[in-house]
């Protein structure tokens, strides 16, 4: 890979450490979004506040994760939050969360 060559570089598949680093940066960015009450980072109306409050985290996130992953995680975030809220609500209404043996915790819908 030369500095002035524009050859397309076939990226290596992310390995375990790279994946974990990406997830970590994502979690940092998302916790920053939690602080400023942004659910959907892809929503244009939040662009300003994200740039103001979480630009550092966002930059790190975008360096550690490839663009397709960033897009995927950002799209996934509102759904995860919605699901979490529904479960919390159910719990507040004294609904019992049944953990079936042999199943992952919170297996339904994930």
């Amino acid at each position: 890979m030369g500095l002035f060559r524009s050859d397309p570089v076939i990226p290596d598949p992310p390995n375990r450490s790279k994946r974990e680093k990406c997830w970590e940066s994502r979690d940092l960015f998302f916790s920053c979004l939690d602080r400023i009450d942004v659910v959907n980072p892809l929503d244009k109306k939040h662009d300003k506040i994200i740039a103001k409050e979480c630009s550092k985290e966002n930059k790190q996130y975008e360096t550690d994760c490839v663009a397709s992953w960033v897009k995927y995680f950002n799209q996934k975030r509102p759904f995860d939050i919605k699901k979490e809220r529904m479960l919390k609500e159910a719990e507040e209404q004294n609904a019992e969360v049944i953990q079936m043996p042999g199943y992952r915790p919170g297996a339904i819908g994930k």
Partner: protein
Amino acid sequence: MIRTTNLLRLPQLGRLFAPTVLRNSRCLSHTFPRANELNEQVMKPKKPLSRIPVGGSESVREQTVKTGSTVEFSTGRALVLFLVVGAGLTYFFKQEKKRLEIQREAETNRGMGKPLIGGDFNLVDHNGNPFTQEKLKGKFSVLYFGFSHCPDICPDELDKLGLILENMKKNHGVTLQPIFITCDPARDSPEVLKEYLSEFHPDIIGLTGDYDEIKKCCKNFRVYFSTPRDLKPGQDYLVDHSIFFYLMDPEGEFIDVLGRQYDAEGAAEKIKQHISVYVPKDAREKQKQGWLGFLFK
């Protein structure tokens, strides 16, 4: 005259009362039954001698029956026996029912004639050697479709696969053949797969191939396949795909899918159940044709 004939018929005791009767003829109808009752009371002990065993009274006979017999149970013991046998049979039939249910489930999945899921494929393994359905024969295999650039689900599932493999080996003594088939042949060359999979479990065999072979294979396994055909090298994209483990029998035929809802133990348990009831094809055919065949239909 009637009076006298009746009196004459009276047994000895009746005759004792006879003078009274004669004196007060009006009471006659009442006195006769009384005389009869008395008569019976006196007669009772006189039973036929043949009912009493020789040399013993009745009470003695009852005693000998109680102590002499070995077959007789107390109610308590009979109850315990009943419960033990009952519980045993219930357990046995429940197990058998469960076994047949799982077998039937597998049988339904196999389908008739052409397999509904699975079939031959012509791919290349991570060492560059050809890999077809033939290689599935002789051992139970677990197939997984994915791609190396998968953001979060595939790595999770592959880690789980590693746990399942270890669990099966340690707890059930079964070595499964784990296979990872890529849905993204453009980026996942044998070398890439080799490196990628080595991080999860050393046993996992990575399969790739040309676009059409992969597409056909995904179609045969009913895997949703969305990889675009013409991709520029270095392009960054994701691939949508179904996330199931496919359990294949030692004849290379499909048994069941395991969805994402299972944890490693749950999946291992399910696989173990299928393996323990597995019957080879020849034996299955024989079962169906035998006189108990109706049970397997």
